Structure formats: C-alpha cells, structure tokens
C-alpha cells in the first residue's frame, strides 16, 4: 500500500493558494460513510472529488450463490431508510420472472407499506436538511412518527430497520388488527404533524436563505446525470416509476407528482414534502380499498405459488407435500426458470432497478442493482462547484445520499 493515496497532501503546500479539506469518510456532516475531498479557496469550493466504497459488501457477488429468499436480506441493506420498498421491489422482480400473479389485496397492502416507507425516508431526509441548516427541533419532533411507522413494520413482519418483509407472492402473514389500528393512528395524527413541520420550514426566512439557490441543477443536466426520484422532479421533470411503469397496481390510484423548477435544495425539500402528502393520500385510498374486501377475500395475503411461498407451519407438520415445499424453499433447492428481467420500483431516492439474469440454476446467474444514489452522487462536484462550504453540506443532505445504497 503506497503512502500517498488516502490523504493527498498538497504539493508545495506553501505556494498553494487553495486548501484541501477532507470531508469524511466519518465526518458527522456526511451522514454516512463516504468522503469528499474539497479544494477550497477561502470558503468557496474550487473542486470536489468524491470517494465511495467504504462500506462495499459485494452484494452482487453474494447474490450469485444465494437462492432468491436469501437475497431479500441483501436488498434491506441498500437504502436502509426505506428497506420495505427494496424488499418488495425484489419480490416483484422475482414474481415477474416466475410468472406469479399477485391478488389485488396483496398489491394494496404492498402499496400501503411502500408509501409508509417513502414517508419515513423523506421525513428523515427533510428533517436532516433542517438539522444541517441549524434547525434541530423538526428532526426530533418527526422522529416520533418514524417510530410509529417502524411499529407498523414490526406488526407486519417483526423487524424495524432491515425488515426482510414479505414473500414472493405476498406477505408472510396477514396484517393484524394492531397493525391496522396503528395505521389508523398514523393517518389521523400525521397530517397535523406534517403541517406543523412545514410551517416550521417552508416560509422560514433563515431556512429559505440557506437553501434557495444551493446546489441547483437544470432539468437537462439532471437527466444527463441519470437523476431519478425527488431530485429529478425538483429539477422539473415529472418522471415517476409509479406512473410511467406501474407495478403493484399503482395504476388504480390517483395522485399528483409534485415538481420543482430550479433543482436546488429548497425545491428538493418542497418536492419531498409534497410527495409525503401524496403518499398519505395513496395510503388512505389503499386502506379504503383493503377494507372493501369482505369474507374470504379479506383473508387473502399471498398468491398461490407453492414452489416459492412458504407453506403454513401447521401444514408442514401434517402434510407431506407442504413439508417438501418447505424443505426445498428453505434449503434453496428450487430451480429458477431461465430468463432475463429488468424491474424497477420508485424507491425513496428514485428508480431502484433489479436486472436479473437466470440460467435455470438455483441462484441468479447475474443480479445487478440499479442504485439511484450511486448514479446521482457523481453530479455532486458539479452541484457544489463555486458554492460555499456550508452549501456543500446542505446539498449533500438534501440529495439524501445513503451510503448503503451507494456502495451495494
């Protein structure tokens, strides 16, 4: 290992007119493990160079010898602020390859969970933008409601952060009454909280001064840089995977796509807030649709896919066939049909894509994750060039860079 590669000392430091600042990899302001090497002229940024890969865990390589269910746990750890979206995106990819058709009720339940995750993702991002501009209160205040969302996850799947939620074809069990009660509580209380949160920031003079014009990008450059999700929409492009390539019955829902115009931190903030309102609306619609199922339809929570959906435990103990399926699924001994599939979902940060190639074996031949963070982080040096150091920090948090998603 050569000495000069990690911290590059400026050559001839005395004559140099700029300062090199290593922001990260463990700086509190990066909110994740990645590094920015900034060249500063006073407080102005001359150039920024990003280094990623500090928490690279070789997910794509690992996936090549894991059966489908063991890959779900890998997707948790991509964007861990909204892991259920990743889980379900992965299951939808598998269902597409395997030809499993999910019932409507499952789709709606998935929509509820995915929109809850979107809210929790945007909530953290926006409140952290607040923290980085000097307003800590919002962050602490909304944390209660992220907690409530996590409690709903807990009711549904048993875990909170890395959820490993759902199965191919549906959910591991039906939503309990406790889950629905918590959801109702959330739907009743959250609008007030979000309104208060908005009141605190949206027309706040200090916040506006700090964010308007910070880290802007034009629609054309954003598209060229492969931006997706709220960051692209803040630049004025109304591209949303939920609308353009609907999955999980998103075509049954009416909602608006909030767009910005300048692509700066303020627009990104507004777009995320707008999306939270839309997500709330979608959840309410989906919940109403779920309640419309009566009788036996109300007990449907998975598709009929015995080769991929774990049978009920009581059947495993009493029925031969169920025992065989259980064994094959748990041991990963089910062959995946050969095929090539690309499926994407609208994650918290944009288009999360799964490119899966199967050669007929028990594990994918190749699995590639399209990670929105990784793709748009490369624009960071262009976004911050010529701006103040403090703007660079706030740009970083408002892009919602998640190290887990970047490094895979």
């Amino acid at each position, binding site marked *: 290992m050569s000495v000069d*590669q990690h911290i590059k000392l400026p050559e001839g430091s005395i004559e140099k007119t700029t300062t090199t600042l290593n922001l990260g990899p463990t700086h509190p302001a990066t909110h994740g493990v990645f590094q920015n090497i900034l060249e500063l002229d006073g407080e102005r940024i001359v150039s920024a160079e990003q280094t990623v890969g500090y928490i690279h865990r070789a997910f794509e*390589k690992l996936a090549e010898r894991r059966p489908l269910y063991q890959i779900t746990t890998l997707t948790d750890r991509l964007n861990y602020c909204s892991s259920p979206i990743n889980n379900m995106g992965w299951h939808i990819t598998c269902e597409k390859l395997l030809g499993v058709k999910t019932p409507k009720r499952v789709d709606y339940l998935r929509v509820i969970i995915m929109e809850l995750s979107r809210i929790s993702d945007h909530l953290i991002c926006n409140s952290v933008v607040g923290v980085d501009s000097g307003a800590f209160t919002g962050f602490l205040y909304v944390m209660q409601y992220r907690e409530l969302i996590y409690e709903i996850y807990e009711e549904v799947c048993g875990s909170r952060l890395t959820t490993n939620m759902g199965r191919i074809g549906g959910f591991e069990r039906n939503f309990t009454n406790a889950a629905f009660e918590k959801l109702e509580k959330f739907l009743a209380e959250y609008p007030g909280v979000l309104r208060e949160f908005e009141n605190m920031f949206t027309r706040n003079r200090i916040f506006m001064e700090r964010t308007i014009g910070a880290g802007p990008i034009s629609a054309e450059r954003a598209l060229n840089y*492969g931006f997706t999700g709220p960051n692209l929409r803040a630049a004025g492009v109304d591209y949303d995977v939920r609308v*353009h390539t609907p999955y999980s019955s998103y075509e049954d829902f009416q909602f608006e796509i909030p767009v910005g115009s300048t692509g700066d931190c303020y627009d990104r903030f507004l777009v995320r807030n707008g999306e939270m309102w839309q997500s709330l609306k979608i959840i309410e619609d989906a919940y109403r649709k779920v309640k419309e199922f009566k009788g036996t339809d109300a007990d449907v929570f998975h598709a009929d896919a015995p080769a991929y959906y774990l049978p009920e435990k009581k059947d495993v103990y009493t029925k031969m066939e169920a025992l065989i399926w259980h064994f094959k699924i748990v041991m990963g001994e089910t062959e995946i049909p050969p095929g090539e599939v690309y499926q994407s979902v609208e994650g918290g940060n944009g288009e999360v894509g799964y*490119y899966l190639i199967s050669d007929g074996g028990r594990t994918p031949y190749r699995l590639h994750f399209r990670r929105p963070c990784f793709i748009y982080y490369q624009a960071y040096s262009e976004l911050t060039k010529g701006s103040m150091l403090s703007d660079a920090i706030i740009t970083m948090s408002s892009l919602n860079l998640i190290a887990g998603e970047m490094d895979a």
Partner: protein
Amino acid sequence: MSLTNETIKERLKAKFGDEVSNFEEPYGLLTFEAPKDLNLKIMQFLFDDEELRFQFLTDLCAVHYPGQAGRELAVVYHLHNLTDNIRLRFKVFTAIAQPDVFTATQLYSSANWMERETFDFYGVNFVGHPNLKRILNVDEMTYFPMRKEFPLEDQTRIDKDDAMFGRGPGGVKAGVDGQGHGPVTGQAGPLNTADQGGATSQEMRAGKGSDEL
C-alpha cells in the same frame, strides 16, 4: 405512445442493417445485440434521432460468460425514452483478452461512475473514459472480482483448516495442553503437529508414570 418495439427495430435495421441482431422481447423489453465497435454509433443514433430520443441511460453493467470463447464479457445498456416512455436494452460482447469498449460518457454523464464500476468488477476497458479507475474496491486490487473465475466459498467444503475452528488434532491438543493458545499458524503444518504431539505424549507418559508409581 406511438413508439413501439417494432418501430424501433425497423429504424435500427434500416440504419445498421444486419449489424444489429438477435432481437428479442423478454417480458416486453426490446433487447438486441450489436458489435462492440458500433456501440457508440448506435447510442448516438438512438439519442439524436427525433423519433427515438433514448436520452436517459437507466443502467449499465457487465455480465461474464466464461463459456463463450471470444465473447466472454457482455456490456449491457438499459436506455429509456422518457417522452414516449419506452425502454430498450442492448448488449455488446467483447473478448476477455482485450476487453475494449468505447465509453458512453460523452453522451451520458451518468455513464462515468457506472463504467468505473463495470471496470472495477469486470475489467472492461472503456476507451476514452476520462477517469477510468476503481471505484468501490481498493485501488491496490489486481483482479476483477465479479468474474466467474472467482467463485464464492462453497458452504460444504471440507478442506478447511480444522485447527482454526477448534476441531481436529491441532485444536484438540491445544485445549489439552491448557497453554491457552492455538497452534501457531505461521509454522509449517507437519512441524507444528509433531511439536505439539510430542508435548502431549510427554504429558501422557508423565501421567502414566505417576500411576505406575
């Protein structure tokens, strides 16, 4: 939404003739193959054409097929026409001995890191890339880890050094000695075993001796 897979296929055929081949539509996504020298020309055509307008690079990655001599590495592009909302996928194959493919960074800024990632894991040399160096792995790495010749560890392998896991002769003896440390891994295997074996047998002899007395 007037643009269909058929139209795209016809336009490509008209422009590039038989150079573009293997048209398929797995799960409705138009997929085709092109010679690697043409990848940039095809992308430029897809980008500039007033009807096609594939101006968004969704994804870029590589796949390794060690069995296909002369075309072991595939670089896969996913493009998206956001105006008409239609996607396509195309692949170029290259020999692993000389994996040179033209870079797409001039057309799509997003290709920069995606190509660096592809280089990092598969060793595809993107000709003309402004900064082709490793991105997720350490710079000192000398191989391309996603290639198929680097298999992940087999869960059922039996050739593990049992001594390292408290099993087998070395590990058991270390416990019997009561010296509180395992076998020294730096030493050559036979010497190590012989050494400890000696110690244990001495102990045993000593124990037997006391019994006899």
